[in-house]
């Protein structure tokens, strides 16, 4: 084993110094979602289960479209932050890295698919 002092081993293993930013982003998205979630539940709930024609007409109106687009986008950004902390708490090393990358890619993909679909419905 290479000669390493205890100090050398410990250096760089402390805080990532990005925790405040992470927490602040979760706070912002959570405040936005407090408003968005009830609006989305009751607009989406009104459309769910209807015929395709009814849904297309319902989601051609600006209000449900804006609520759905914002909720999908902000919820996926909030999930991105939350799932990262979940993974960091229970995994380590390469598994941690790849799971975080995968989970973040899933949240981006869902945000993109959801936004595209909602806008496509509206137009």
């Amino acid at each position, binding site marked *: 084993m290479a000669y390493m002092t*205890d100090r050398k081993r410990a250096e760089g293993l402390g805080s990532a110094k990005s925790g405040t930013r992470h927490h602040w982003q979760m706070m912002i998205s959570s405040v936005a*979602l407090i408003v968005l979630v009830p609006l989305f539940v*009751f607009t989406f709930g009104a459309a769910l289960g209807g015929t395709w024609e009814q849904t297309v007409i319902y989601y051609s109106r600006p209000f449900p479209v804006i609520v*759905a687009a914002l909720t999908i986008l902000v919820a996926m950004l909030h999930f991105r932050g*939350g799932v990262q902390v979940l993974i960091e708490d*229970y995994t380590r090393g390469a598994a941690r890295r790849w799971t975080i990358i995968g989970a973040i890619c899933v949240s981006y993909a869902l945000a993109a698919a959801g936004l595209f*679909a909602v806008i*496509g419905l509206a137009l």
Partner: protein
Amino acid sequence: MADVNRGNRPLSPHITIYRPQWTSMTSILTRITGNALIVAALMTVWWFVAAATGPEAYAVANGFITSWFGDLVMILSVWALWYHSLAGIRHLIWDAGYMLDVEKGERLGQGAIVLATVLTIVTAIVV
């Protein structure tokens, strides 16, 4: 000294050694509900993509979500969504520096569970 336990340090969940308490259980529930909601998110985005695709795709997605299995997932997700939202409000209250003592923290957690259940019933009736 520094070589002791290298690379085998404990990770976060020391769940097994703690007595269950309202504070810890409601905290764990916040994490479980938040992350489990990805299932409802997948189903919801699928529904929107299907609706944008056309009537046949929509019939499949809408049929699945309104089937008994889809209904079960959605009603559990609605409870998870309300609970996670209320638990988030609890965190914002704590972040602002209020209700930090154990008894109030426990009351907030119990309140979140009760209110989430009430809101789920209201949602089931309205939707």
